[in-house]
């Protein structure tokens, strides 16, 4: 199946789910009497989304790049590295609150360098610490932005 059609199918399902959820948008008694309510645009968009995606699925694919199947288009890609980076970003979001800006950022950069194959420890540490500390100094020292320390330090009684 052409990758474009796979995409259209995904958006078709998304549009259907969006349309169904739109029926659950609460309306007050007064707004129910109006012609244009909070549901009107979502309904119109859901219909447009369904119509357009069905058209893409139904019509022959013209775009040569879109004709390729997903496996053809993504064959040979470095999936494992990309997935590890995505997971790292997700973990970064989770630990930010607990470890605070400096530690979590250094962890993120070191993790990123390692995932991408960097093995020179000194270079990694220097780049990560220098970048994070410079940014922290600009924000806290020069711009006066308050960056809260990690929750963990409060829990441990360090702060």
């Amino acid at each position, binding site marked *: 199946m052409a990758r474009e059609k796979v995409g259209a199918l995904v958006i078709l399902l998304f549009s259907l789910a969006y349309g169904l959820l739109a029926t659950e948008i609460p309306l007050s008694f007064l707004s129910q009497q109006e012609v244009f309510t909070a549901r009107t645009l979502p309904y119109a968009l859901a219909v447009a989304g369904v119509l357009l995606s069905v058209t893409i699925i139904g019509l022959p694919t013209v775009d040569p790049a879109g004709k390729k199947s997903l496996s053809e288009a993504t064959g040979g890609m470095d999936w494992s590295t*990309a997935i590890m980076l995505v997971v790292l970003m997700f973990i970064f979001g989770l630990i930010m609150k607990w470890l605070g800006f400096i530690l979590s950022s250094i962890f993120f950069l070191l993790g990123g360098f390692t995932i991408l194959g960097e093995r020179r420890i000194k270079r990694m540490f220097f780049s990560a610490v220098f970048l994070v500390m410079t940014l922290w100094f600009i924000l806290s020292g020069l711009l006066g932005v308050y960056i809260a320390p990690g929750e963990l330090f409060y829990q441990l009684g360090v702060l």
Partner: protein
Amino acid sequence: MWEGMISGMLTGITTTLIPINIAMVLMGCFAGSFIGMLPGLGPITAVALMIPVTYGLDPTTGMVLLSGVYYGAIFGGSTSSILINAPGEAATVATALDGYPLARQGYPGKALAIAAYSSFSGGTIAVILMMFFAPMLASVATSFQSADYFALMLLGLTAVSAFAGRGGVLKALLMVIVGLMLATVGTDQTSGIQRFTFGSLELLDGIEFLMLAMATFALTEALSIVLKRDACSDSFKAKMIGFKSLKVTKKEFKFILPTILRSSILGFFVGVLPGAGATLGSFMAYGMERNLASKEEQKKFGKGSLRGLAAPETGNNAASTGSFVPLLTLGIPGSGTTAVMLGALIAYGIEPGPRMFVERPDVFWGVIMSMYLGNVFLLILNLPLIPYFARLLAIPRNIMVPVILFFSLMGVYLVTFNDFDIQMMVFFCIAAMALRLMNFPMAPLLLGFILGGLMEDNLRRALMIYDDSMSFMWERPITLGINLATIFILTMPLTRSAIKYVRGK
């Protein structure tokens, strides 16, 4: 009108020549060239990455900085196209067609200098044209009502799809719809009703524009570098060509001068069209020049022709400037990058559109006049710095990619200080990456998202004025005119196919 224009220009000059604004133009050009030069990163990413820096600034200063980043990034993209045949983005692909062969022939300095002079000339001529056309359009547009705005936004959204590549119209339209759907998340501004928030407090204010822009462009572009192993910048070092001289002879300059003039005018008007942008500007200028060239000269195209290099470089810069016309006068972005800038304007609390011309002349004229300064800075500062900038291309991706990801995530986190935004950004990054792999464009999604709220508000207001009737769509002459333009643009691909079919018969 002339009096207004002159006083506006004076306002612009006074605004631009404030030390902080001069510094921002300089910083914008510098940062734009720096980011734009990195393979895989284009002006949209460059502008999105710099938006958090502008949040503490005055709106005019912020816009001046972002404008500098925009044309700096276009300029930077040309450098990687010429030196390593790796265009940072679509607008500089045409530059690589003749720029890289010229560099391979032993003239990388000359190629870069021609690109710089062409960019400067294209940008400057387009700014002059903009000074005349933008106020004219803005003064006409001040009589616009909600109905016209709604129609204009429809025009802007459909125009993006009209300039999509072969077979891309429906996909672009579908992405606009998805963008509009995302814009409905949060509290409805008029009724105060929550939509698609799933009871989450974080979603009450809707999806943050900057977060979506970073997720769909900066993060996905950085991940694309990783996914496509061949885009690894480690290999660029070996491909890099050494510099000799940045000199262009008088004869060569005379030879490319008519090309620069023609491409500037064409590029500007292409850029003014909503949805066209720098990519179309560069390719159309290249195509025009090739058609106009003698048969002998035509053979040189693609093999290092000076005209083949000057035309797209002039065209893309002129079009970039031209795309500011619909943004500043109508509040309709002319390209993906100006869509991101429109989002920034809204975030600054400025309502984009013709009223901005009247209410915030400092922003309107400040941006226009700062472009002059930006073009000069790009020429006199960046040109000698190119050899040093080019060393960036040798930064290994092991270091570059995590740093880009870090700045993208930080850019959003430091605005909201909410770690939920990082999680949401990762979610949108995965979705955007999947859609990209399925060959769906991202710029229309962002455009739909940015214009969604404004479009719904204007439609609602127009309906209230016209007693819940859609008759304004054909009763108001201005609205009707804009709607006819929308219909024309929507049916253009069909008409093209029909003409081809008839000719084929």
